[in-house]
């Protein structure tokens, strides 16, 4: 995290807004002067005052992740003014569905193959050799679980994740808590 206000150089936000970058500037830790486009995008889509309000409602340790995810969404919206991030979600959902079908087909092939190839004397009472029991097609609910984000907003269900090729640093840290800081849905 950069803290431009502790030096003479204003943060990217204050430079953009043409104002003095005061000590304690809420933007300074997250919008270093070397990344002017990051704030430009966020300001264009969300507006500086809305971002200030959002950050003020979060705990300090949550703000960096929040800013990075806002920057991600803003960049997505700038690139695709119609769909923004939702375009990516739609694309990825289709990938998940396609892979699930492939996985189901592969598991079915494996079982068929095993049943056709293993002599009856070598089978367990269930008809599957012990070394292939683990290859049974997993129940669908176990293989991939996600809540399909719908336009009415009934998404949710967050899990631990690994890194992604983001344009900005990862918007989360090791303490990623999907339930942290959320509103109760009343707005």
């Amino acid at each position: 995290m950069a803290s431009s206000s502790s030096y003479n150089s204003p943060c990217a936000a204050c430079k953009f807004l043409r104002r003095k970058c005061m000590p304690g500037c809420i933007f300074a830790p997250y919008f270093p002067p070397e990344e002017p486009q990051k704030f430009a995008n966020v300001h264009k889509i969300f507006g500086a005052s809305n971002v200030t309000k959002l950050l003020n409602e979060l705990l300090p340790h949550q703000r960096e992740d929040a800013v990075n995810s806002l920057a991600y969404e803003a960049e997505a919206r700038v690139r695709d003014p119609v769909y923004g991030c939702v375009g990516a979600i739609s694309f990825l959902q289709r990938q998940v569905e396609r892979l699930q079908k492939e996985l189901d087909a592969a598991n079915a092939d494996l079982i068929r193959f095993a049943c056709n190839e293993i002599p009856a004397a070598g089978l367990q009472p269930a008809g599957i050799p012990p070394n292939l029991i683990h290859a049974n097609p997993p129940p669908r609910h176990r293989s991939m679980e996600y809540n399909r984000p719908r336009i009415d907003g009934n998404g949710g269900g967050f899990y631990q994740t690994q890194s992604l090729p983001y344009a900005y640093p990862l918007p989360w840290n090791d303490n990623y808590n999907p339930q942290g800081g959320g509103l109760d849905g009343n707005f």
Partner: protein
Amino acid sequence: MNSSRCAACRHLRRRCPSDCIFSPYFPSHDSKRFRCVHKIYGASNVAKMLQELPADRRAEAADSLYYEAYCRLKDPVYGCVGTITILCQQIHNAQCQLATTQAEIASLSAHSGLQNQYPATPTFNLIDQYDVASANWSDFNLQ
């Protein structure tokens, strides 16, 4: 002037002109929809974004803005980026499972001597890790 104001004009406490940019997409019966987008983006930013689009794309844009705003209100830290993360993880997990299963099939087929029927090398379609920074966004459409 509309005798019935749209949800945006009602929320903003102003008259709703006949050419109101909001009214086709924020009907009066769904006040939550406008409140969401207003809280996250602000009315003027939403109006600007809609005005910059051709009229036939505005409905989809309003829907996606609402979805993202809703996600951000539910999860103020990650918003809908959390959903993207989960989906990428699920894709990765599924690819690994698929690779394992196809390797098992290949191994069994090699063992049984049916290499012509089942190839020894697992074949599956790997999708590239989704790279937001370089993606061609215009290819993506809402389902």
